[in-house]
């Protein structure tokens, strides 16, 4: 089944720095969504970007989508210790079924004070 690959697998930065995570997928998509998960708890929805969109912003978050390269990136600006979490991208497509999400492998972000 299609699965997004995320890189890096782990990222360690200092507070105030920017963090960039990348997600690649294999087939054409309907939507791509980014999530945050703290310490094995539930997932927090961050941003949904549709296949016909190229960029979206939400507060300190910026998501880009390049359908020609089948990739997306999540940028967190001015990071805080509270941003420490795992971040996942998830896609749905005609191939997998509408709203049936296929998740990437995730990036573990550590933000040190």
């Amino acid at each position, binding site marked *: 089944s299609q699965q997004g690959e995320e890189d890096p697998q782990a990222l360690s930065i200092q507070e105030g720095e920017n963090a960039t995570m990348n997600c690649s997928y294999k087939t054409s998509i309907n939507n791509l969504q980014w999530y945050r998960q703290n310490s094995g708890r539930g997932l927090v929805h961050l941003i949904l970007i549709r296949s016909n969109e190229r960029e979206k912003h939400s507060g300190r978050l910026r998501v880009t989508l390049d359908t020609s390269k089948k990739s997306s990136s999540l940028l967190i600006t001015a990071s805080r210790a509270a941003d420490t979490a795992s971040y996942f991208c*998830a896609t749905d497509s005609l191939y997998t079924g509408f709203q049936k*999400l296929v998740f990437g492998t995730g990036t573990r972000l550590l933000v040190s004070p």
Partner: protein
Amino acid sequence: SAVISQKPSRDICQRGTSLTIQCQVDSQVTMMFWYRQQPGQSLTLIATANQGSEATYESGFVIDKFPISRPNLTFSTLTVSNMSPEDSSIYLCSVVGLAGEQFFGPGTRLTVL
């Protein structure tokens, strides 16, 4: 976004027993799903919980092992049957919002001894 609750939040069970997990949403939703997150892994879709009909299972998941009920548009249950240690995971329900975002419940952390 919808408010989703799950019960129990965690449980420790003996092998060979069954556990039923409940998912309650504060508003009526059409689409509801169940996912599994094995330790250190990403999320995998188990099934679509269909209101008024049998659930639709993904490859590798069967109704005898993971029976699902969806009696109305705000509630669903997932049962993990005849459990083994390999079933130790976080189980999450999700719903689709009006704009297409998929929101997740807080998860049920299951440990099978």
